[in-house]
């Protein structure tokens, strides 16, 4: 088993634009790390560099303490599961899984033992002599995983492996992959653009944007303490509400101008860190789920915002209401299901849950 370390790694195809821009990551042994970010953020390129399918333009990559920059993929002791599975269409399930072992000249008995073992884990025993075209999406996905398992590599790499599956199967496979990680106890690096996958599966998440790592932390830390506006907006659904504001200082503490109302910041923000932002533009963020349900009386003294509902999204157990307040679209997530478009809505801010960001750098304050 192995740890994976990226030190100041960059990738450029044309020597001008950096697809991956000077990233550093330390992935511990047996850790399940998720690289998440929007399309084109460089997450797949990073994974492909770890796999050895892309040359590293600058920086160093270490697997198990050994620099592998110039090692071909077959010598890195990694296995990869591709987005489109990449199963060999002319080979059956057994041959697909055994191919890597055959190339490495394993004995026939050993190949058979390992394939049967993987087939047992992945419940593929009844399909060993089926061709990939005769399998369902979920079964193909399992064969792709099986092909990785049989090699018993140091590191597993997954490139958006669930994106071709339907929603129900995706949830099921998500749980199965997490179970597999625990069972095998290996290092896994998983690329996805789906924040739900990232939050539910990973030990740690690396949020990427424009070729850079925005934050590398546990899922809950990323959710509760986003390091910048991008991470705050990317993780969580619907996205966090952002309102441009101004920080004011008065005798009894710091205040923010929030959609026309002057609101005193709670005690946790009352410190010297805010000193340099006085009278400066800042960004206030609040998650849709961090507004207080109207019937919690004890928060009646908290500031409120109101508007007319423009869009409603009924999710069954909860609803998302989009309304405009001071020309700014705000979304609220609530268990109140009865409100309709054009109705008035008034919500209370949970000031303990607000986030403040630098108005220029967008870094968390």
């Amino acid at each position: 088993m192995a740890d994976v370390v990226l030190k100041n790694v960059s990738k450029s195809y044309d020597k001008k634009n950096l697809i991956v821009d000077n990233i550093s990551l330390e992935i511990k042994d047996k850790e399940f790390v998720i690289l998440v970010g929007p399309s084109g953020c460089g997450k797949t390129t990073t994974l492909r560099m770890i796999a050895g399918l892309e040359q590293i333009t600058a920086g160093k990559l270490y697997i198990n303490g050994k620099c592998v920059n110039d090692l071909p993929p077959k010598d890195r002791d990694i296995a990869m599961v591709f987005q489109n599975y990449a199963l060999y269409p002319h080979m059956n399930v057994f041959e697909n899984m055994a191919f890597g072992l055959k190339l490495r000249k394993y004995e026939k008995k050993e190949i058979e033992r390992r394939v049967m073992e993987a087939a047992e884990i992945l419940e593929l025993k009844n399909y060993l002599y089926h061709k990939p075209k005769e399998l369902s999406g979920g079964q193909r996905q399992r064969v792709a995983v099986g092909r990785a398992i049989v090699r018993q590599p140091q590191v597993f790499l997954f490139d958006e492996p669930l994106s071709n599956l339907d929603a129900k199967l995706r949830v099921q496979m998500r749980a199965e992959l997490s179970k597999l990680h625990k069972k095998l106890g290996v290092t896994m690096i998983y690329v996805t653009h789906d924040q739900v996958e990232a939050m539910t599966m990973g030990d740690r998440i690396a949020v990427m944007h424009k070729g850079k790592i925005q934050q590398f932390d546990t899922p809950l830390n990323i959710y509760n303490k986003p390091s910048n506006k991008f991470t705050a907006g990317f993780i969580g659904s619907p996205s966090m509400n952002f309102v441009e504001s101004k920080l004011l200082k008065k005798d009894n503490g710091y205040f923010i101008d929030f959609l026309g109302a002057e609101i005193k910041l709670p005690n946790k923000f009352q410190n010297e860190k805010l000193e340099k932002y006085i009278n400066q533009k800042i960004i206030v963020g609040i998650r849709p789920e961090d507004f207080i349900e109207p019937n919690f009386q004890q928060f009646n003294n908290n500031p409120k915002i109101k508007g007319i509902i423009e869009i409603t999204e009924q999710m069954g157990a909860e609803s998302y209401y989009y309304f405009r307040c001071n020309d700014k679209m705000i979304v609220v997530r609530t268990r109140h299901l009865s409100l309709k478009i054009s109705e008035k809505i008034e919500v209370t801010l949970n000031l303990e849950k607000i986030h403040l960001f630098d108005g220029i750098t967008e870094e968390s304050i």
Partner: protein
Amino acid sequence: MIEPIKNKNFYLQRILLYIFLTTLLIITITPFLIMVITSFKTTDNIAGLRDILPSIETFKNFKISRETFKNYIEAWNDGMFGKYFYNTIIVTLLVILGNLIFDTMVAYALSRKEFYGKKLIFLFILARMMIPVQVLIIPVFILIKQLNLYDTLTALILPNVVQGFGIFLMKQYFDGIPKSLDEAAIIDGASDFQILRYILFPIAKPAIAVLIINTALSTWNIFLMPLILTQSVEKRVLGLGLALYKSQYGVDYVHSMAASTIAVLPILILFLCFQNYIVSGLTKGAVKT
């Protein structure tokens, strides 16, 4: 089942189409029929070229008996025909083998590798396909002569082991195969040669069938190259041998046609074997799935 409504025009179009296709079929098949029918006649039946054309009499008197096959036996045993047949098989098999190996290797590089001048090389290969063999025959002759290969079967094999059409065909087919399969194989530990041998080659079976049949057809029928590049009777191939088929009594149509029928048979059988692959190969290469 709902039948679509068809108007008079539809049927008229159909009738005209069938007339056109039947005419085309007759034009195509007549020479073959004449060849086969003539091959079963006796030398006495044919006084001149006019007797070759099939008439009602021909069909009336036509019957296959053990005696009628004697033309074939005589043609086979006569002179060097067996040798020509053997030479043609050797040349064709080796040219097919060469094309299978080298065309696919060049196509793999052009489809999968990035290198300087790749597009230009592909353009040259395409341009080469437009140059007829008649234009190339003199430089090829000089080259073969300088290599001391004149009047050998190698002279017929070597210039044909890589062909533009084969490279083009295989490259187009490989382009349609997802690159992630190669990458999966690379991760599995495969080398370039192993990717070609174990992944792309088996997937490209339809294109390979087209490559085999096309190479076989063009090589089986070569005429100009052996005419220029060989001299001795022992080095002749079928195409040349048939053209020069003469008996001591002048042009022997009966035996010549029997020999031609024997010559056509292997390629006809090959075509029938690969027929299904060829159709799917031609369409699959054109449309990416």
